[in-house]
């Protein structure tokens, strides 16, 4: 406080003469306040949204680290930091231009004609030199879109935890982030055929979350369940090592989602846009709350004791459910859409177990099933959406992702194997794959 008091008058002294100067000479050359503001605020929205979504990588890492056993925590952290970094590089090399052909299609509306690395604007670009002065800087757009690509890859790692080899997983991430994700995303967000058909997906319930979910589901089926998960027809729970970390991870994801959905307004240069961004923040938050409380109540009623891991999944389910349309719902409608997502996961988690599919963190119920629910829920609040077109988009993206993922997983299985040995799985992937443990000072449990 003391420092602030002494600094404040000094700051005023510095500020005053410069204000006077500006009045005397008019705005600096190259500054056009009336039109620059749109470019500046749109770019700013992308940058803030982008670093919030980047932080979701930390959320996924902590959630997954908490829901796996302690012998696999270092491996899970390794996968998360490596997949994020690979997504950053391969989205730059191939993904960005594949996703945003800007009208240059090799096959109209289906596949981009622009292959090659992303290129940014020059240093100190002027209004005249900017790629799109009426909109936003290319760097901000690239940075923001890259984070969505990385999020898709993060979804896959949790489901396949505790039994997949490191390198085959990372190779899958490369294909997912350079080809599978950007190609299907171009169909909607790149102005391709799904966009032309009137398919609506505001921030990616289908384009991001269901794609991650489909890839995870395909991988889980091909990879098989963890040893000891299913025994004599019954499901054997394998409790996670640290629910504190899982809770922190969930809150980090919740925070990051304001960037995910809020900045997907893609503009903040007008009163209308900034008010819409505000609506989206509020709706996103209330949907998460609705999902968490619904899961809390339903798990209490169904299992006699509320299940924290399901409440965490419920909050995320609410977030995924509102992602396809976070703008048009009222606060009440957003809460209900999120709450239905929360109810869905509590039923879907045991149902997926019954199908003998081992999803360690619940990514399939949260991202795939609630991604589908959220995409359908658009029709309740947005008059431009039609149920038929929404289902069309869900099915097209689903078939494409399952087929391409299955091909990649099978090739990897054939060429190098995707699963660690039984001995390594029992001893833990930390020692087997990395030769180090997350918690070396604890005895093994």
């Amino acid at each position, binding site marked *: 406080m003391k420092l602030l008091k002494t600094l404040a008058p000094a700051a005023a002294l510095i500020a005053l003469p410069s204000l006077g100067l500006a009045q005397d000479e008019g705005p600096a050359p190259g500054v056009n306040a009336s039109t620059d503001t749109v470019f500046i605020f749109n770019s700013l929205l992308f940058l803030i949204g982008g670093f919030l979504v980047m932080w979701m990588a930390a959320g996924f890492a902590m959630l997954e680290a908490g829901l796996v056993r302690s012998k696999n925590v270092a491996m899970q952290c390794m996968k998360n930091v490596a997949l994020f970094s690979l997504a950053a590089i391969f989205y730059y090399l191939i993904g960005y231009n594949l996703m945003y052909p800007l009208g240059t299609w090799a096959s109209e509306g289906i596949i981009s004609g622009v292959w090659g690395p992303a290129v940014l604007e020059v240093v100190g670009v002027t209004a005249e030199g900017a790629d799109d002065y009426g909109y936003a800087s290319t760097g901000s757009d690239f940075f923001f879109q890259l984070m969505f690509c990385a999020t898709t890859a993060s979804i896959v790692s949790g489901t396949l935890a505790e039994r997949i080899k490191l390198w085959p997983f990372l190779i899958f991430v490369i294909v997912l982030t350079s080809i599978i994700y950007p190609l299907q995303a171009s169909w909607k967000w790149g102005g391709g055929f799904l966009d032309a058909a009137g398919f609506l997906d505001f921030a990616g319930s289908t384009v991001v979350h269901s794609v991650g979910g489909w890839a995870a589901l395909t991988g889980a089926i091909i990879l098989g369940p963890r040893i000891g998960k299913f025994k004599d027809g*019954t*499901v*054997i*729970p394998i*409790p996670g090592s640290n629910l504190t970390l899982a809770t922190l991870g969930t809150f980090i994801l919740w925070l990051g989602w304001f960037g995910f959905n809020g900045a997907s307004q893609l503009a903040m240069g007008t009163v209308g846009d900034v008010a819409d961004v505000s609506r989206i923040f509020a709706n996103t938050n209330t949907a998460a709350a609705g999902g968490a409380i619904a899961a809390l109540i339903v798990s209490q009623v*169904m*299992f*006699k*004791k509320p*299940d924290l*891991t*399901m409440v965490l999944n419920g909050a995320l389910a609410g977030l995924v459910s509102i992602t396809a349309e976070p703008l048009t719902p009222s606060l009440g409608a957003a809460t209900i859409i999120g709450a239905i997502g929360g109810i869905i996961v*509590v039923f879907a*988690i*045991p149902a997926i*177990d019954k199908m003998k599919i081992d999803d360690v963190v*619940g990514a399939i119920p949260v991202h795939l099933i609630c991604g589908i629910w959220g995409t359908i829920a658009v029709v309740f609040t947005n008059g431009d959406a039609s149920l038929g077109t929404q289902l069309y988009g869900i099915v097209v993206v689903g078939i494409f992702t399952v087929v391409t993922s299955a091909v990649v997983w099978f090739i990897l299985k054939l060429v190098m194997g995707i699963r660690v040995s039984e001995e390594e799985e029992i001893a833990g992937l930390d020692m087997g794959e990395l030769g180090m443990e997350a918690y070396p000072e604890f005895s093994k449990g």
Partner: protein
Amino acid sequence: MKLIIATIKPFKLEEVREALTGIGVRGMMVTEIKGFGSQSGHTEIYRGAEYAVNFVPKIKLEIVVAASMADQVVETITKTAQTGKIGDGKIFVLDVAQAVRVRTGETDADAI
């Protein structure tokens, strides 16, 4: 000398320690253990799937005292660790052949 091995409910440890020091017990060994007896575990639900907790957490006390004091120790543990509910634990009393204090080399009664 007698060795008294007692398993008790973990939340009773502090109460039992106070009662035993109150009657003149000057040392004990404490171990966190898991086990089952007539309680034979219970079931819980994790992410919608029921599972059995076959081994219940307990505390194991090991106390060596003069033979004349053994009955009093057993009685004190029984009294303080008792809740009347299933799973209160068990007490075993064994003979001890020898005791040595490492610091001084004192033996038997002088060592405990």
